[in-house]
């Protein structure tokens, strides 16, 4: 089974130290890991560093890789206007580094991934004409079609409607179970993390704050420390943990500022 371990990992971008000293226990296949942290905490940079697009100290240790490229990375959508059809752009991700000729197994893989994400109907549409949510599904397809063992996804649900969010998270969870995939998802929705992720990794200002089972990491004291919010965790009717946000931890400061 594949495992990913970060050891004293740092990252520099444009001469600025963005991440430093990130050490995690081995994250193993079969787990869905939520990567949490405030804006500009370094989540995207961490992905880029793991994938090899950013430089810095420390090591990314991968054990049990069965291919030369075990990691796939789905970046945040940059809002450009790509002019390829959905089918072509997913096939394109599949064919990188390979032969020029497209084989039947490549078509089978693309068709399978499109069906899995429920976007087969979009295959002839130009990616540039899709909505933000549809584009995120295409992005997920582009990552999945590469048959990765480790999948890094940067806010894949940010533009999806609620039902698609649940669908995608359920699908990712199923993939981790069925195929022993390790999926790391950067997200802002702490409720999703609590409901779907096996493990959570929290970073703040370029350093690791916590990494471990979600129920031990996503707790009110940590959320107060990192996000500055007062929260409670209660169970919904289905027995799943729910995050209830009571407000900002420093609300009193805000009131004082208004009074002045």
């Amino acid at each position, binding site marked *: 089974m594949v495992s990913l371990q970060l050891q004293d990992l740092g990252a520099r971008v444009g001469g600025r130290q963005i991440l430093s000293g990130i050490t995690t226990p081995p994250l193993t296949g079969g787990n869905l890991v939520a990567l949490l942290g405030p804006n500009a905490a370094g989540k995207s940079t961490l992905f880029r560093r793991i994938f090899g697009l950013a430089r810095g100290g420390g090591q990314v240790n991968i054990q049990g890789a069965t291919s030369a490229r075990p990691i796939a990375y789905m970046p945040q959508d*940059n809002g450009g206007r790509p002019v390829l059809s959905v089918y072509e752009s997913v096939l394109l991700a599949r064919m990188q580094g390979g032969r020029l000729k497209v084989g039947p197994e490549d078509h089978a893989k693309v068709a399978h991934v499109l069906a899995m994400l429920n976007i087969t109907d979009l295959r002839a549409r130009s990616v540039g004409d899709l909505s933000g949510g549809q584009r995120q599904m295409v992005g997920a397809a582009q990552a999945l079609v590469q048959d990765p063992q480790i999948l890094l996804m940067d806010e894949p649900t940010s533009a999806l409607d609620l039902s698609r969010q649940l669908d995608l998270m359920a699908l990712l969870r199923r993939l981790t179970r069925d195929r022993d995939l390790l999926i790391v998802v950067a997200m802002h929705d702490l409720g999703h993390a609590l409901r779907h992720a096996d493990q959570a990794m929290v970073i703040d200002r370029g350093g690791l704050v916590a990494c471990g089972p979600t129920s031990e990491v996503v707790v009110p004291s940590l959320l107060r420390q990192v996000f500055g919010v007062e929260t409670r965790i209660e169970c919904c009717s289905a027995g799943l943990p729910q995050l209830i946000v009571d407000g900002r931890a420093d609300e009193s400061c805000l009131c004082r500022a208004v009074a002045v």
Partner: protein
Amino acid sequence: MSSDAVAVQGRDFYASMVLRRQLILLALAAAVFLSLCTDLALGPARYSLGQVVEALLWPGSVDEQARVILWEIRMPVALMALVVGASLSVAGMQMQTILNNPLASPFTLGISAGAGFGAALALAFGVALFPLAAEYIIPVNAFLMAMLTSLAIYALSLRQGVNNETIILLGIALVFIFNALMSLIQFFASQQAVAAVVFWTMGSLTKATWPKLWILLAILVAATPLLMRRGWALTAMRLGDAKAESMGVNLRALRLEVLLIVSLLASVSVSFVGTIGFIGLVGPHIARMLLGEDQRFLLPGSALAGALILSVGSVLSKTIIPGTVIPIGIVTAIAGIPFFLYLILSRRVSSW
């Protein structure tokens, strides 16, 4: 629906798209051949298309005079139009791809202007930038200046804060600098030299010879598989840098490799035939509209579109004023401007 049925459906969808593109390529190739034959038929001695095709396929069957005119006089010029058109179009297409900018071309990046300056140095003062090749002093000068310009563009593109739009601005700046330097040369040069410089900058195929043609063809033939090998990576670049990187494309290495290859294509073309604008801009855009972004079709499509435009330009340059061959650079520019305007005003460009 079973997963097999879904896969078959996807494959059929893709196969029909591929077939359509192959047919378009075939039609372009046929148009190029037709234009080549027309180009060969036209001139002081006129031949019918039938005679031309006969002379092409069975050179022994036509009389000696027709063979000499078609094969030795007109053929190098007509083929030069195809090879130069294809080279400039492919160069422009890849510049647009790696800079992700629809306005990139050998012309707008200053490569043609650089070549013009190098040629003017040789034409006006006999300055050889590379002293070994006395016979080829004008094309060698033009080539060296064009390559220097490409490398300058590349070096500037690596600086922080330089994006794909600023590179075009840098290119335009280079065009102005080289044009000013050319004017300076003309100011000090003899009248005869001024005429030579002006004629060179108009672009002309009439000085085409078999050796020049072979050199250009060799470069085009060598460059095509090198670019084709990078087909998937280059197509991925059209999805934006972040996406291409996430697919494992090494952007820096690919940009340098492709820029060097296409600079060579553009520089050698321009140094042999002078400044021929718009092919490198218009050829790729036509190919993109017809064939989409997949480099496996776009690359041959751009080559064919460029070859077709310049070949048709060559036909026009002979027919507009019977008995006079107007320099082809003028013809392509005048025909290119309306298309260029259409490109700017139409929705197509906004899809960039």
